[in-house]
């Protein structure tokens, strides 16, 4: 069914200016009643009677009046409307409550209905009715036409319509003709009432918006006749960010920043805004209520007390081709940095543990894949251009980044509420040097260095568009200099080799900005360590490599991309030689005490290290499974004198004073056995089970996933005392996968020490890796996990898979591939590719 629901709650709910001191209800809806119904001689010709007359010709449309037509003044509007409809249903309704049961009774069985809410209402009343309809008839479509509801407070009413109703799933119709269309009525009669939605200009801005986004702009600017949109940066993330200039007729309105993004993204932006507005006050725009259409959410933001035309800091930077504007840019940058530092960062600052490579998301394989791909593309451009500019050894670079980024260690540093995506386009300035920060989608508590590193990155690579290929040698030198110390000197203090930067405004602009950014950043820190800052720079420079204009992924030309690549290369080398990296990794499984941190120089047992005093740790379940005391025990006794002879037989390069073997890889920061059962080497088997994929014909490898997520792993298990490795392979595969191997041979491809986070000074893991290659029909499709895994499955035996297993096990896969190639089971080309792409 289709219904027009008409009410007149407005009449006694709104107090007029004139009457509010008399504290009695007054009818302030007369003007609006007259507009809807038509005034004077036009009475009965207004939009509402016109709609009702059109509807009278359509049996499918029912008119429902909410009100008390029998009680005089309160029902005045409804009484009047009743004259224009024959056979309207009347649902008694009081001003202060909604007629839930009455309406439900009247509309019994109205599934899949279209409801149009019209008449005179307060905004609260409209919300109430719309919510009620949505609750009673969840599958119904509910709409409110902006031009068919009357209000005593028009602007407030518009606000309610455009902001809140769309979020309740209520469609706001922006034009009287749309209301007719909504009910399936001819719209020609209604078109006469004009009142078209706000026009979006210029055409290219409008065309760049899909229907949902256009609708959001029209809803946000419902009170304007025209909105002129000017894009503000971004554009590659799927969000739309505009400065909207508005007109009401010929009158110019205050501009508004409009942002539209995917619903979830925009929700984050709103969260971020509410998080920072208490600190930044007028330096963030004032957000209006958000409007939703489809999966998009939009919001209008006002720049309070703005003077003159606003411009982004990016505009100022790009225009800074003269000393004067360059100075203006630096003044504005300085003000922005000072505001953020004083109001936001310093106020929300907290000390804590920061795990830099993880917090910047550098530890994932995906980052390395992107790095390799983008660097290859950039170098191929260089070859195409026939340039003699320095190349970068991509494979070595990826190895180094992998090495440093896998460092799971943390350090004491500072975090605070940060912007999260601070770039020059997110800083708006005006003629009065007022400053606003926009786009708080990525805001949160993160390292204090994050925004500064992002800003430096953007200044150096993204914004600096004035360089060409002849400049890259100098850019490389310049970048090496910037990365050589925390705060670079000013232009006068540059070393001789960089004197060019003093006279070239393009370089000097960057130098001054970077110097200022870092000065402010480090003034917020307790120590003088800039490791976290450099990891941030690495993260953003790596990301910048993808902003490739040729591939339509950003605005960066080859010189900018190359500049960023040189920076990644220099940063990677600086980080791998950093003391932070040269400390031995502090990785430890849950339940372990914190390892004593030692440097590479303190690790070897041959060197004296008087300060070495690691915590001693043996897990309770190891102690409880003492094989000399418990029938099924699998662990050595804690008292090593009870197994002195056996211990002496175990191979060990070094032993401590009690005869306990010492970890061949040096000090680990923890004494005891941890969760490992044996003193010294704990022998393990790892199984590389391989089959021919029945569909692709390529080779698959069997991997398991643990319940707690993390890396994929090969089936593996410790060898029991006196157990043959072969037997262990069969036992482990039966336990872990429910797979009982037949006569397939298990070929050993690796035997030796394996890095394992469980290792201690007195216990470590040595692995034997076996390849078990089965025919397609000898391999089960599904498995019955009975051990460590929640699930096991076949994955292609390729580099991508190898990069998803722990590094120790990736080495087993490499050995397995070498064996399979030699045995003729894997073709040489595929094997070589695998070996080239793994490490």
């Amino acid at each position: 069914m289709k219904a027009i629901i008409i009410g007149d709650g407005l009449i006694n709910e709104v107090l007029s200016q004139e009457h509010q001191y008399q504290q009695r209800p007054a009818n302030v809806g007369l003007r609006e009643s007259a507009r809807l119904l038509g005034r004077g001689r036009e009475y009965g010709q207004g939009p509402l009677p016109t709609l009702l007359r059109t509807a009278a010709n359509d049996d499918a449309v029912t008119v429902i009046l909410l009100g008390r037509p029998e009680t005089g003044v309160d029902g005045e509007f409804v009484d009047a409307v009743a004259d224009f409809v024959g056979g309207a249903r009347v649902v008694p309704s009081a001003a202060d409550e909604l007629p839930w049961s009455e309406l439900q009774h009247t509309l019994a069985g109205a599934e899949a209905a279209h409801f149009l809410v019209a008449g005179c209402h307060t905004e609260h009343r409209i919300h109430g009715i719309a919510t009620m309809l949505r609750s009673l008839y969840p599958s119904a479509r509910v709409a409110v036409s902006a031009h068919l509801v009357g209000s005593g407070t028009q602007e407030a009413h518009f606000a309610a319509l455009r902001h809140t109703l769309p979020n309740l799933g209520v469609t706001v119709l922006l034009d009287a003709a749309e209301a007719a269309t909504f009910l399936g009525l001819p719209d020609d009669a209604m078109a006469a009432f004009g009142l078209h939605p706000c026009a979006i200009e210029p055409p290219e801005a409008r065309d760049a918006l899909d229907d949902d986004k256009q609708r959001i702009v029209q809803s946000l600017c419902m009170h304007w006749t025209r909105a002129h949109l000017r894009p503000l940066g971004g554009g590659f993330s799927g969000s739309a960010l505009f400065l909207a200039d508005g007109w009401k007729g010929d009158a110019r309105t205050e501009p508004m920043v409009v942002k539209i993004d995917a619903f979830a993204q925009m929700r984050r932006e709103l969260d971020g805004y509410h998080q920072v507005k208490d600190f930044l006050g007028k330096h963030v725009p004032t957000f209006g209520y958000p409007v939703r259409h489809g999966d998009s959410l939009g919001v209008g933001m006002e720049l309070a007390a703005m003077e003159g035309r606003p411009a982004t800091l990016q505009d100022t930077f790009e225009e800074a081709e003269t000393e004067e504007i360059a100075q203006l840019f630096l003044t504005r940058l300085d003000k922005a940095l000072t505001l953020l530092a004083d109001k936001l960062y310093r106020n929300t600052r907290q000390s804590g543990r920061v795990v830099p490579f993880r917090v910047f998301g550098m530890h994932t394989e995906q980052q390395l894949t992107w790095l390799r791909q983008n660097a290859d593309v950039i170098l191929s451009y260089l070859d195409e251009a026939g340039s003699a500019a320095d190349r970068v050894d991509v494979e070595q670079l990826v190895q180094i980044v992998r090495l440093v980024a896998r460092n799971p260690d943390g350090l004491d540093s500072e975090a605070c509420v940060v912007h999260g995506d601070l770039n020059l386009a997110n800083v708006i300035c005006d003629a009065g040097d007022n400053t606003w920060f926009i786009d708080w989608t990525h805001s949160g508590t993160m390292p204090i260095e994050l925004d500064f590193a992002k800003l430096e990155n953007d200044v150096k690579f993204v914004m600096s568009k004035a360089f060409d290929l002849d400049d890259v040698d100098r850019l490389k030198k310049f970048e090496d200099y910037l990365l050589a110390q925390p705060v670079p000197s000013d232009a006068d203090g540059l070393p001789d080799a960089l004197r060019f930067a003093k006279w070239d405004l393009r370089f000097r602009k960057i130098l001054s900005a970077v110097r200022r950014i870092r000065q402010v950043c480090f003034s917020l820190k307790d120590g003088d360590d800039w490791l976290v800052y450099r990891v941030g720079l690495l993260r953003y420079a790596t990301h910048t490599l993808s902003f490739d204009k040729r591939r339509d992924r950003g605005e960066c030309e080859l010189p900018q991309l190359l500049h960023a690549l040189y920076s990644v290369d220099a940063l990677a080398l600086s980080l791998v030689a950093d003391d932070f990296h040269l400390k031995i990794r502090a990785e430890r499984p849950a339940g372990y005490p914190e390892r004593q941190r030692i440097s590479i120089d303190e690790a070897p047992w041959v060197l004296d290290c008087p300060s070495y005093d690691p915590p001693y740790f043996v897990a309770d379940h190891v102690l409880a499974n003492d094989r000399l005391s418990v029938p099924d025990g699998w662990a050595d006794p804690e008292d090593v004198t009870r197994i002195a002879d056996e211990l002496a037989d175990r191979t060990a390069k070094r032993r401590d004073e009690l005869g306990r073997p010492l970890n061949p890889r040096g000090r680990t920061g923890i004494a005891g056995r941890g969760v490992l059962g044996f003193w010294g080497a704990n022998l393990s088997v790892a199984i590389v089970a391989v089959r021919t994929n029945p569909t692709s014909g390529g080779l698959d490898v069997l991997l398991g996933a643990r319940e707690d997520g993390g890396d994929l792993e090969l089936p593996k298990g410790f060898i029991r005392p006196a157990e043959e490795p072969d037997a262990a392979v069969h036992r482990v595969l039966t336990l872990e996968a429910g797979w009982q191997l037949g006569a397939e041979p298990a070929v050993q491809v690796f035997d030796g020490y394996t890095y394992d986070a469980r290792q201690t000074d007195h216990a470590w893991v040595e692995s034997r890796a076996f390849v078990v290659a089965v025919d397609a029909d000898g391999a089960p499709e599904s498995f019955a996990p009975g051990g460590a895994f929640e699930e096991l499955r076949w994955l292609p035996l390729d580099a991508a898979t190898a990069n998803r297993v722990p590094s120790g096990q990736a080495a087993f896969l490499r050995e397995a591939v070498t064996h399979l190639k030699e045995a003729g089971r894997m073709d040489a080309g595929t094997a070589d590719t695998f070996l080239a792409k793994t490490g």
Partner: protein
Amino acid sequence: MDITTRTENDITLIAFAGNLDTNTSPEAQQALDGIVEAGGTKIVVDFTTLDYISSAGLRVLLATAKRLNGVGGTMHMFGLNDTVEEVFEISGFSTIFKVFSDENAALAGL
């Protein structure tokens, strides 16, 4: 520390004896810089007589590798004793540098 160098065709072999640590790293750096500045792009480092390498020594090697990278050069190493190999392993430098079992293998790889 004893540093000896010899040149075979376009390859420069450099051997370090003793400890490559904070005290001796400036000397080692100077020797390696000298090779690169003289236009050497293929360097083989002989560690057969090296007893120990510290973080300072690692930095020297890294700085040289970086300089060589810029000019398309390569550096190979061989003859790591257990201690040095352990340091390479723990620091992860074994994945960055090209380490060979003996001199022939190191030369053959260039």
